[in-house]
């Protein structure tokens, strides 16, 4: 793989995954007003579901018996199946995406239980943050799920059977981008629909919407289920991209990254969320490249840490000087508004 293609594929894949995350958080907080500080839990749940599918269901569908799905033999079997048998691989991959979305949505529903009952503003944020850590620690300490703290290797790119690594990763990057575009269109349609306007009304004044006969609790639960399902979808895509699942990848800082993307782009603006995701991907790739370039001097400065310093300062700057983000929220596009504008 030439450096340029590899750069393009990593950039496209990360951008697509970040875009789904940022758009789904924007749906939850930007439009729905639900501060999901546990975003990483759903991202992680998606990845764990993908891991379970790849280690258990893939050999099952392919009709291969695996004695030790989490050990080295399991890795060999997975790689062998996905290199030679396209149909089984694709079927498992699609199933993993669907199942991840469903499981993510289910956990979102579970977490809407506290979300609907906690009154105090930031308690919910705290409970969600802690829930994310609870998920991580359970998966980390309980090996039968995805191998505990050692993680799970060999969750392969679903296009590995093409044979050529460059083509496979290009194809997968294109698929991720396509799915991300689909998610963007879906979310953008729904926030410009009556549901979207209901969301905004619940965010801005729950009492007023209640007085108009709207079921505020139901709307809040719906938006958490919707957003969490999308985050889990991103998690499954991420697992198949990275190929290695470790619970320690899903620490609270990832949630913070997603918040930075959304706040940077602009809360309540989907295009903004995409811009935020793009900026984050650029920062990510640039620091990663610098880290590789300066590898020999890595004892002097650790660029992975510099990345977080940059992101932290960026977030502080936005919050202090441009709270509405790069692209502020726009009025709802309804036919009536279009008429009034003209």
């Amino acid at each position, binding site marked *: 793989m030439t450096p340029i293609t590899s750069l393009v594929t990593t950039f496209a894949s990360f951008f697509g995954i970040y875009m789904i995350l940022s758009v789904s958080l924007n749906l939850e907080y930007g439009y729905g007003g639900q501060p999901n500080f546990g975003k990483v839990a759903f991202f992680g749940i998606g990845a764990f579901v993908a891991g379970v599918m790849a280690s258990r269901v893939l050999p099952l569908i392919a009709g291969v018996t695996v004695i030790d799905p989490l050990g080295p033999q399991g890795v060999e079997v997975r790689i062998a199946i996905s290199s030679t048998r396209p149909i089984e691989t694709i079927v498992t991959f699609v199933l993993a995406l669907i199942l991840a979305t469903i499981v993510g949505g289910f956990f979102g529903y579970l977490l809407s239980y*506290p979300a609907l009952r906690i009154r105090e503003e*930031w308690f919910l944020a705290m409970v969600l943050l*802690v829930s994310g850590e609870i998920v991580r620690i*359970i998966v*980390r300490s309980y090996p039968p799920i995805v191998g505990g703290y050692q993680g799970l290797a060999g969750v392969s790119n679903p296009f590995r059977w093409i044979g050529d690594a460059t083509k496979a990763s290009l194809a997968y990057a294109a698929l991720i981008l396509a799915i991300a575009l689909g998610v963007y269109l879906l979310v953008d349609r729904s926030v410009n629909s009556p549901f979207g306007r209901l969301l905004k009304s619940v965010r801005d004044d729950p009492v007023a919407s209640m007085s108009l006969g709207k079921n505020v609790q139901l709307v809040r639960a719906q938006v958490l289920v919707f957003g969490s399902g999308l985050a889990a979808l991103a998690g499954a895509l991420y697992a198949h991209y990275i190929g290695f699942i470790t619970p320690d990848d899903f620490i609270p800082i990832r949630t913070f990254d997603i918040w930075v993307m959304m706040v940077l782009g602009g809360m309540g603006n989907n295009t903004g969320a995409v811009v935020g995701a793009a900026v984050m991907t650029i920062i990510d790739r640039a620091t990663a490249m610098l880290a590789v370039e300066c590898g020999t001097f890595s004892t002097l400065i650790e660029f992975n840490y*510099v990345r*977080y310093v940059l992101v932290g300062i960026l*977030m502080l700057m936005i*919050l202090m000087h441009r709270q509405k983000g790069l692209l502020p929220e726009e009025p709802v596009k309804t036919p009536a508004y279009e008429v009034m504008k003209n």
Partner: protein
Amino acid sequence: MWVIDSLVRSVLIGSLYTLMALGLTMTIAVVRLPNFAHAELITVGAYVAVLSSYLHGDVPLAIALSFVATAIVAFVCHRAVYRPMRRKGATMYTMVLASFALGLTIRYILLVWAGPAEMLQIKPKIPLTVLFTIGETPVLSVFVWSLPTAIVLVLVLHFLLHRTKTGKMMRAVADNLTLSLVTGIDLERIHDFSWIIAGGMAGIAGSLWAILYYATPYVGWTALLSVFAAVVLGGLTSFTGAIAGGFVVGLSENLLMEILNRFIGLEFTYKPLISFAIIVIVLMVRPVGLIGLLPTRVIRTTVKHDSRDDMT
């Protein structure tokens, strides 16, 4: 005897959690900000203790220097970030996010510095002497510092809050912001003062932690959720509650964990779940925490938290 071992550790860690929780309670009650950067104040305190031990290996010096340095850091954070944001009318969530961002920035700056300086995991150069042993646990001289320091600090804080004018003003601001503004309390001064005290206490806790264990850039972040558990358990705005919460969390993370491990076979990797469970259960079931379970004379100091009060 493992029970005594575990009890000693519970009390030591509990006293450190108490110090950290008191500072956090102060920011939540008086400044109305659940400050996630509190973790990094603790870390800064730990590193100042390490650096001071290169000057002179002495526990009181380390504690004093940590107090001063961390108080300065907290004050600068307040003036540079929190106060300008609050003046622009930032909401609670944006403030929480900002504190998270600030903490993250400080933490990773420390990591960037500590790597090349070879200080990623380091103990202060303070000579250790064994004073006596309880059971089979040797009690080191530095251990003796942590509990009395915690007790003295709690007493000083109590005196400050109840016997001095500034302290009374702080409690008034925590209790009812609007009313205290009407009586002409200088809010800016109270906020400055609260940040200095909260930061200083976090710094002392951090330095004691470094002396007992070691300093890493993650010290504060690892402790933070346990400290939040202590604060939540104490009812968020009650200083008495924070003390009780600190010791309860210390006990449950050590003694209770040890008991669960011995009798149910729960592995130690699940230890953080205890404080997480405390946070989730208390916030959902009983958001006022331990308040109400304590005798009424004790809760005279407690205040009711009302987020709908304007945040100035």
